[in-house]
């Protein structure tokens, strides 16, 4: 265990991991809806830092741009459009929390036990793979078909979002 603490990478890991888990816990328990989103930003920032520690620069900056840049704004717009209570509110959660807490604790225990049991103290040596050039090369050679499929999914989501969110012209004529 003292070996573990003497490694500088593990200090960075703790520095990022503890705020990240606290942020995640507050994001799902905070009674204030806007603060929950702000804690989610904290979690995502820690996650991007962990990606950097693991040598995945491109994924880290994509996470910052796509999540912290776009998805968070979308969440805030969603909150404002649905007229959610912006201050503290008591009825943001179900009244019975204990079964859910028990289930998620059990899932956490099972998952961490399984990973410790299977991987033990297998080492990671970061920065073997993961230069951005390798990622780009691999996307356009080995993963070119999945890449095209993902772009098609994004197009379908774009069209679907427009179709869902716009008002139905026929029902509008009927109401006039």
């Amino acid at each position, binding site marked *: 265990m003292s070996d573990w603490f003497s*490694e500088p990478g593990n200090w960075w*890991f703790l520095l990022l*991991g503890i705020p*990240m*888990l606290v942020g*995640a*816990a507050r*994001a*799902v328990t905070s009674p204030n*809806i806007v603060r*929950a989103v702000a804690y989610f930003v904290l979690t*995502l920032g820690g*996650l991007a830092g962990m*990606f950097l520690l*693991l040598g995945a620069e491109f*994924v880290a900056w*994509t*996470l910052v741009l*796509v*999540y912290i840049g*776009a*998805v968070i704004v*979308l*969440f805030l717009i*969603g909150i404002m*459009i*649905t*007229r*959610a209570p912006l201050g503290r509110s008591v009825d*943001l*959660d*179900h009244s019975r*929390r204990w*079964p*859910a*807490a028990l*289930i*998620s604790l059990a*899932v*956490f225990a099972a*998952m*961490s036990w399984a*990973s410790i049991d299977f*991987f033990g103290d*297998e*080492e*990671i*040596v*970061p920065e073997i*793979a*993961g230069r951005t050039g390798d*990622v780009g090369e*691999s996307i356009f050679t080995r993963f070119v078909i*999945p890449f095209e499929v*993902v772009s098609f999914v*994004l197009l379908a*989501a774009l069209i*679907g*979002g427009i179709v*869902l969110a716009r008002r139905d012209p026929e029902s509008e004529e009927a109401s006039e």
Partner: protein
Amino acid sequence: VILSQYLIVSAGLFAAGLFGVLVRRNAVLVLLSVELMLAAVNLNLVAFAANRGDVGGQIFALFVIAVAAAEVGIGLAIVLMIFRNRSSANVDEMDLMKW
């Protein structure tokens, strides 16, 4: 740096997201908790990519990010539709298909 420490942090994120999905009433916050679970999956993928020295895991994480962005867009459009029809975005009031 061992692999299990990243897997345990990821399990913690996943458990927090699961708790949020089960407990939150506001549909936007349920979506946010789902994003938390997807973030945990991304951490696992990148950790395994570093462990195996294969860049494929990172590319998978990129695909998960892209699909999650599409999911948030569609999900919020659906929430908006429900809010327009029922003037509430609470998931426990959507009981139309409940037996």
